[in-house]
């Protein structure tokens, strides 16, 4: 067993012999697909239903999307919390931080600038970005 304490490649299953096909790996992908289909179907239903409060639909869609991205990461990309995938998780955490800073920071700054924009006298209100 040459299994030293190495990191695991992203996308690889935890410490399996690579040459034998294991039926449990097939089930991992199948479970991932079923959960992803369920979440996608819920997203499409929530966007079209009139049963829900429209303000809540927006938040619900965001939650469903983040949940589905998590499902893809765990079941398709095999990102785990195990010790052999620490580097992968750390890189992912840094990526998520930057994504959050870019998106939330942009929306915050631009919304703030838009709210504080000086409208020259006589200019139409349509100079504001809302239309």
């Amino acid at each position: 067993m040459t299994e030293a304490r190495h990191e695991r490649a992203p996308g690889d299953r935890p410490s399996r012999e690579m040459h034998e096909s294991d039926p449990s790996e097939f089930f991992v992908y199948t479970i991932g697909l079923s959960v992803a289909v369920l979440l996608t179907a819920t997203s499409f239903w929530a966007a079209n239903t009139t049963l829900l409060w429209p303000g809540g639909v927006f938040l619900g869609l965001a939650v469903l999307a983040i949940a589905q991205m998590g499902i893809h990461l765990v079941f398709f990309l095999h990102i785990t919390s195990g010790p052999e995938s620490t580097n992968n998780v750390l890189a992912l955490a840094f990526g998520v931080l930057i994504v959050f800073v870019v998106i939330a920071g942009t929306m915050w700054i631009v919304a703030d600038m838009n709210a504080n924009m000086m409208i020259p006298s006589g200019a139409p209100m349509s100079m504001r970005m809302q239309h």
Partner: protein
Amino acid sequence: MNVAVAIDQIPQDALPSASEAGPAPKRIVVAYGFWIFLLSDIIMFAALFASYSVLVRSTAGGPTGAQLFNQATVAIETACLLVSSYTCGLMSLAVNSRRHFGTYLGALITFALGVTFLGLELREFSSMIAIGATPQRSAFLSAFFTLVGCHGLHVALGLIWLIVMMVQVAVFGFVAKVQHRLLCFSLFWHALDIVWVGVFTVVYLMGVSA
């Protein structure tokens, strides 16, 4: 004090640490490097998502998302990409156990679904352009075509990459180098599906419900 005690209690026959075991195998180094690239690619998509969210209401009197988007098309596109991600996963299982037939079958289904996705997207784009909703029409449409088009471009590149990989499997067989590349391809394809989850939620579903 407690730290020193805890270190003393580590069993001596544990696995060697990573530094004692020498450099990591090529497979891990290659896949980790590609993982870093994918994360940087996702950060680029984050910038496009941010600009889209800022510009989504700037339609300049032109058509809005609710008037342009067809949810049935988006649902079929989503299904294609999701199932192709699944078949790509099954293909990587066949690659790991060195089964030629399973690899070719998985690649063929993945390719067919990817082409269907791309065809539907191009048809959507051309029908939008036909009614005057071009990227030049408004800031909203510029941001839309940049974001969705960039994802479509990635899918197109992934399809070309898949053809190249199947040629390499046919010519070289399952040598280590080809296996590393196939691992990178499956990472790339799964990452594209994750980006698409963001696209269909933010662009299409929030666009028609808001």
